[in-house]
Structure formats: structure tokens, C-alpha cells
């Protein structure tokens, strides 16, 4: 079956819609960056974007290729040191939203970006890049969103290593750690949305157009619960797609036209 919308389109557009006007967002490059810029050009003109390299309020004239791209710096509102961006912005509670990804995301929204394999940390089968800012974003941003393709190997029952805390073994366990942020509010996949239930377990709460609950269940490593009031996400609008393709990624660096 050929879909009307690509996976990237669905993830970016639905992530953009999670953002509220006035949000301060801690953002990386790639799809989260596109989602933020899309939100800013539609319903959230007062969005402030913060990059972990210490850049606040960037207005890049080209699509940034790394979080330290010089195009983020020229014409930005403010630049600060790495200590300050993590301390005064993130740890202090000045960040509303963080975007996360990772090699593995488990049933309780815990993320692994460190090591794959059962031999433990000291003898990694696959060594991943590690935390970077992720451990801190997941702990201290008021709200977190995770963007990821919906694949069984990415959604194990339990991650091999917790790089970033979701709800640990349940919401009460996260609460007990005393972290200031609220944890993952939604996982935006190319099939639909997973949101934590009252216990912090990720459940399927919405499907994208032309996507099925069966596909989601099949591509999840745990016994995925489906919300009683399963919703459908609004299809990406022509305007959203126009902004993405014509304004934000005209050279198709992150988005390939179907």
C-alpha cells in the first residue's frame, strides 16, 4: 500500500502540533528542528528555541546540519556557555519542552542511547553515542516528546540501559526520584501516538491516517494496550506540507517528497 503521507511528514507535523505558543523548547537538529520551525510558522509564533550548544532564539538562514552549526549563531538572540545552558536554563526549570530520541524506548518511556547487548555496560555489543544532553532533558524539561519510527527493535519491553529516565518501572517510581520534569508526554511514531497511562505505561492513544492498531501492536515489543477512545490524528494540511517542503527543507535534506 502506498501511503498518502510519508513517515517523516506524519512524525514532524504531529510533533509540531504538540507545541504551544510561548513554549521554550530544547531542540536538536533534524526532525525535531523541523517540527519546531513548523510550529513557529503556524500556531506558535512565540516559540523560543534553545540548542544545547548554548544558542537561544536562533533564526538560521539555512537548515542547520549539526547542533553547533554557525548558521544558528549569526543573528541569534543570545549565546551562553554549556554550563549555563544546562544549569540556568534546563536544571533551573526554564525549559518547557524537550525532544528526545534513542535506539530503544521501553514500555515506561525509558530511553537507551548508551549500549546494546546483554553483557552489560563494560562489554558492549553495540556502543551507542551515550547521553549527551538526553539524561538531563528527560529529567528537567517540563514536558518531553519522543520522536521515533515505530519498530519492534526500538520498542523493547525493557531497555538494556536507562540513559534517560521515563517513568522507570512506573509513574510512582519516577515521582520518588524527585526529578523536576514531568517525563514523556507522548511518543510520536510514524503510526500514531503513544501516551502514558496513569501508571506511566505507554499506550496507543491515536493513529495517523491510513495506519492501523494492528500494525502498531505488531511493531511494539511489549503487549501494547490500545486506548478505549482511540483517536485519529488530523492529516497534515496542505499548508503544513508547503511550509515543510518549500520553506524549511527545500533541498530535501531531511524530507523526500513522495
Amino acid at each position, binding site marked *: 500500500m502506498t501511503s498518502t503521507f510519508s513517515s517523516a511528514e506524519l512524525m514532524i507535523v504531529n510533533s509540531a502540533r504538540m507545541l504551544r505558543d510561548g513554549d521554550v523548547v530544547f531542540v536538536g*537538529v533534524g526532525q525535531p528542528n523541523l517540527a519546531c520551525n513548523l510550529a513557529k510558522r503556524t500556531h506558535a509564533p512565540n516559540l523560543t528555541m534553545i540548542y*544545547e*550548544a*548554548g*544558542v537561544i532564539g536562533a533564526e538560521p538562514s539555512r537548515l542547520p*546540519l*549539526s*547542533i*553547533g*552549526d*554557525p548558521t544558528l*549563531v*549569526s*543573528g541569534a538572540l543570545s*549565546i*551562553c*556557555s*554549556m*554550563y549555563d545552558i*544546562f*544549569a540556568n536554563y*534546563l*536544571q533551573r526549570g526554564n525549559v518547557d519542552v524537550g525532544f528526545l530520541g534513542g535506539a530503544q524506548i521501553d514500555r515506561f518511556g525509558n530511553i537507551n542511547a*548508551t549500549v546494546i547487548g546483554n553483557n552489560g*555496560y*563494560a*562489554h*558492549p*555489543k*553495540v*556502543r551507542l*553515542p*551515550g*547521553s*549527551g*544532553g*538526553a*539524561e*538531563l532533558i*528527560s*529529567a*528537567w524539561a517540563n514536558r518531553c516528546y519522543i520522536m521515533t519510527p515505530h519498530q519492534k527493535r526500538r520498542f523493547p519491553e525493557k531497555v538494556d*540501559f*536507562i*540513559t*534517560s*529516565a521515563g517513568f*522507570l518501572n512506573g509513574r510512582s517510581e*519516577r515521582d520518588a*526520584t*524527585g*526529578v*523536576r520534569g514531568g517525563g514523556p508526554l507522548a511518543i510520536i511514531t510514524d503510526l500514531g501516538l503513544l501516551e502514558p497511562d496513569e501508571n506511566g505505561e505507554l499506550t496507543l492513544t491515536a493513529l495517523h491516517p491510513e495506519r492501523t492498531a494492528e500494525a502498531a501492536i505488531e511493531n511494539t515489543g511489549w503487549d501494547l494496550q490500545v486506548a478505549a477512545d482511540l483517536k485519529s490524528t488530523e492529516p497534515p494540511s496542505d499548508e503544513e506540507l508547503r511550509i515543510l517542503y518549500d520553506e524549511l527543507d527545500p533541498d530535501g535534506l531531511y524530507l523526500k517528497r513522495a
Partner: protein
Amino acid sequence: MSKLIPLSEAISKFMQDGESLYAAGFTHLIPFAAGHEIIRQGKRDLELARATPDLIYDQMVAAGCAKKITFSYMGNPGVGSLRIVRGAIERGEIEWEEYSHFGMISCLQAGAAGLPFMPIMPTGATDLEKANSRIKRVVDPYSGNELIAVPALNPDVAIIHVQRADINGNSHLWGIIGEQKEAAFAAEKVIVTAEEIVDESVIRSDPNRTLIPGFIVDAVCHVPHACHPSYAQGYYDRDNAFYMGWDEISKSQESVQSWLDEWVYGTRDHAEYWEKLGKEKHKNLEVEELLSAPINYGKY
């Protein structure tokens, strides 16, 4: 008393086998020229620390300079994996010590401030803490709650690339200023490489821009384009093609070795390396001028 010396002399004089190094620059002003000179001089058993090892430490590890690596994000920024360091860790060929970005930078901050540790608020993620015994707990004397503690990092040597410095090492930096100041104050010895050597009067015209005072600097080296394939804000662009190309080169030890042979061992110094990149590359990385609005300090 001028501290201006050639980079080769600075490295041979101030960077010894077995010492620890923090080559600073978070995604910006990464001192590649100094890294290459360390490779050329065949330094061994270095303890390399950087938040993001980036290609500079991938190359130094490939060249056999390192016995240990300390980091918080071991990726090729914007590209993917950092193959050499990753392979060395997977095969157990190198020691490593790992933090989150804030953990790593808090180690440097403690080192810079003359403190033995820095506290960090809880993050809920304890697997790294279990794996790295250097990460400890400290009790907040006000609430009785436990916080995370990370130890001071005081490298033997910090290498800092700056846009402009005077011959005494007073340095102006701008754009992304990640952890250069912290690394310089944390280290026992400081080597500054600079795009431009300027008269002291230029530095004194804008003292708020001087993040590194000369009196903590041991050597100043004039090395234009020292950051390639990283960049210097306002001087040249990031060579993204190289970062992507390295992903290919670093797939085999052979191609890495031949790259090192051609570009590092095969060049006398960074000037020759830059020349060898060729006019077209130079032109691609050129950047048009965009000046800051001046400020008035006033004559008092």
C-alpha cells in the same frame, strides 16, 4: 613577555606522553591543528577528555595517541557514529569514563573554580552512575535530599582555539563558547591557538570579550584555519562534507591510516594541510562579513 611560539614547539614543550588533555570547543573552534600536531609528534598514552570526542579524538585514537577517553557524547555530530572510538571501546582496547553533558561540564566547572566536586540535581537515570564509580552522591545540607556529585576535572593541558589573541595570550572568543573558559581555568597548562594575533589594544578595546586572560596561558600559536573541518565563527564555515566523508574513511583501519599518512604525517604543519585542501575548498568555506553593532565603553 611574549608567549608566541610555533605550534610544534608548544606541543613538544607542554604536552607530554601520559598526560591528560582537554582539547576544548563544543561543536565550534575545535583545535584540529593541535590534534594533528600531537599525532605528528607521536605522543602516546594520553588521557583524552572532551564532551564530544568528535573527529579530532577519533583521529588521535586511530593514530595510537590515547590510552583513555572521557566523554559525554561519542558521536559524529549530525552524521552518526564515531567509528574509531566506538570500535576501540567495543573491543576493550581503550579505557573510558563517561558522563552526561552536564556531568562532564560540571567536572570542568569544579576544576575551574577550585572545588573538588559539583552538585547536580537528580535525573532519575542511575545506570551510568552504577557504571562510573567516579559519580557519587552528596547530601544537600538544607533539605537532606541526595544530589549527584561529579569530581573536579583538572587536565594537565588544555588546548583552546580562539578567534583573536594578543602575544600574551589574552583571548577574544565569540559564537558558541561551550567550555573553553572552564577548560582553560581547570587545566594546569594552557595552549592557545588563534586565527589572528592582534595588538593588545584590540583586546583592551573590548575587555568583556576576553574569556581567557593571558596570565593563565603558557603558549600562544598563530594557526589560521586551525579548526578545519570544524569552524571558526566569522572566519570560515564548517566542512560538513568532511564530517560525512569521515564516516566512510573511518570504516576501515586501512583507509584511516592512508588518510593520516596523506593529511597528517604527509604535511609538515597546518599551513601545508590547509594549502593541500585547495582553492575550491577554501572558497566553499569562505564566509561573508556580518559585523556586530559596536558598544561604547567611554573614556573615563
